[in-house]
């Protein structure tokens, strides 16, 4: 039986529907969730992405106030902007669209957002709270993968979850969700570096394998166990040999594994389309926390 496809677009729209209802309930109590994003410069990819976030706000009913700063903005001006947003009671959530121009320190800017509004979950206070099992904002990729698994009906308790990625956006925050002693977690979590020696000896034991290394066909059929659930968060642009068009491929040899895995998140159409929705989820959460409703 071929693997089930975990449809990120479908899960994403389910969550957005739920959020619409929740935002309406909040508005009835006088709380309008507000999100501000800071975009520096005109980088086309970033501009497009901020546009997607604005559109999602509109759909879900979040009040959005994007701040567009010129490429030449100084660090001081940027920090003043962040400070204003920190103090604005209408703004519950703040993100900075990365990457920023080189003359600005991303680290300093991210650390300047107060933890209560840091919906991307990059502030050390949020990283620490999440790791210790306390309420916290967690980076979108990690929540998206966790939502994808739990909403698809997978019980994570006692499962061998192997994560090939140890960075601060994917592996570490995912581990910090999955190791907690909570109903939707309690997994045995292994963090592997992409260059871990004899990687297959780890991936072969995974009930759930999560990979994010940006290398096409990095995970092949001989590296997984039969029935494994595969979450692919890789993205590499390649030219299609037939159509000559550029397309995105993940880290898993999808054709090769489809008869052996029990489920797979595709690229594109898997985790990627869920990310903006996770920002909405965290924004609504931030608004509830600010209003003392959670």
């Amino acid at each position, binding site marked *: 039986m071929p693997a089930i496809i975990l449809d990120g677009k479908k899960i994403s729209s389910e969550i957005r529907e739920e959020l619409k209802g929740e935002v309406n309930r909040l508005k009835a109590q006088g709380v309008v969730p507000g999100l501000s994003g800071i975009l520096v410069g005109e980088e086309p990819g970033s501009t497009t992405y901020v546009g997607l976030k604005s559109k999602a706000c509109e759909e879900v009913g979040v009040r959005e106030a994007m701040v567009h700063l010129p490429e030449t903005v100084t660090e001081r001006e940027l920090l003043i902007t962040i400070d204003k947003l920190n103090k604005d009671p209408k703004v519950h959530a703040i993100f900075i669209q990365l990457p920023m121009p080189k003359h600005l320190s991303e680290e300093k800017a991210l650390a300047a957002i107060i933890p209560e509004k840091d919906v991307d979950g990059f502030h050390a206070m949020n990283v620490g709270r999440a*790791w210790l099992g306390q309420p916290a904002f967690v980076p979108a990729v990690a929540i998206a993968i966790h939502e994808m698994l739990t909403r698809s009906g997978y019980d994570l308790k006692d499962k061998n979850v192997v994560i090939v990625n140890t960075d601060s956006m994917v592996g570490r925050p995912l581990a910090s969700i999955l*190791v907690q002693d909570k109903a939707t977690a*309690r997994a045995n979590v292994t*963090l592997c570096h992409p260059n871990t020696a004899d990687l297959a000896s780890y991936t072969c034991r995974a009930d759930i394998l999560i990979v994010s290394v940006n290398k096409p066909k990095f995970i092949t059929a001989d590296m997984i166990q039969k029935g494994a659930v595969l979450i692919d968060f890789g993205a590499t642009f390649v030219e299609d040999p037939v159509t000559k068009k550029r397309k995105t491929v993940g880290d898993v040899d999808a054709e090769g594994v489809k008869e052996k895995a029990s489920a797979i998140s595709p690229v594109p159409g898997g985790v990627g389309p869920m990310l903006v929705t996770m920002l909405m989820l965290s924004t609504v959460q931030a608004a509830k926390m600010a209003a003392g409703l959670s």
Partner: protein
Amino acid sequence: MTAEIIDGRKIAADIQGELKQRIANLQKKGVSPKLVTILVGEDPASLSYLRGITRSCGEVGVLTDSAKLPATATQKDLLNKIQELNRDDKVHGILLFLPLPKHLNALEAESAISPAKDVDGTNPISAGKLLLGEETFFPSTPYGVQELLMRSGHNPDGKHVVIVGRSNIVGKPLMGMLIQKQKGANATVTVCHTGTRNLAEVTKQADILVAAMGKAKAVTADMVRHGAIVADVGVNFIPDPATGKNKQVGDVDFEAVKEIAGAITPVPGGTGAVTSMMLMANTVRAAETSIK
């Protein structure tokens, strides 16, 4: 062949010698490292821990003092005390004993300790920095495990480390430390727990097995791969049939496992001996950083 017994007391003594030298250097600059503990009420386990800390400080030459607040202290009293110590230039390290009386908010109190003086690594921001690989103070138990491995020649780099137990003071911080692309780390790390089905299957994968579940003799010989390095973080007290008194044992069935393992830490005299020294090491480093 019987396993190499890793001598925690010897390693602790080596670290102590190094710390004394660093303290002497600090004193030449007019700085004496000082650790202040905060104890609210009279929890017996905390009092016993306090005696241990006072003894270690005395041996190493770290000044120490204990701020004792009555069990009836308010949250405001506690926060005021923490702020006072945060501001005091002569205090380099602050340690808050847990558990606190139930009417107090531990999380808020821990978060109030200045990260520059959080030598026990309990402020969530310290935990966050640890996971992000930024400079911070490691909680003493996992820090002790890492030192013990390094100093006994068992560098975790490139090894599969399996940690049984995922507490906030041992399992999680140790995982966070060992996955970093840093010296003494760069390992592949698995965290599991006592409730894990087929625990033996997981533990047998370990090149380095860390037992931190808080259960006497829970790691048995059939759970250990031949030649594995076994670090036992457990501290349990069980009755000794020979003497009728309680004796201290770890989480590992030492007698049986030492016949299988390549190296093993005893209890007592293993990781515990190093742990208390790491709190001293953090306090000395805090003092060094304060004059940089």
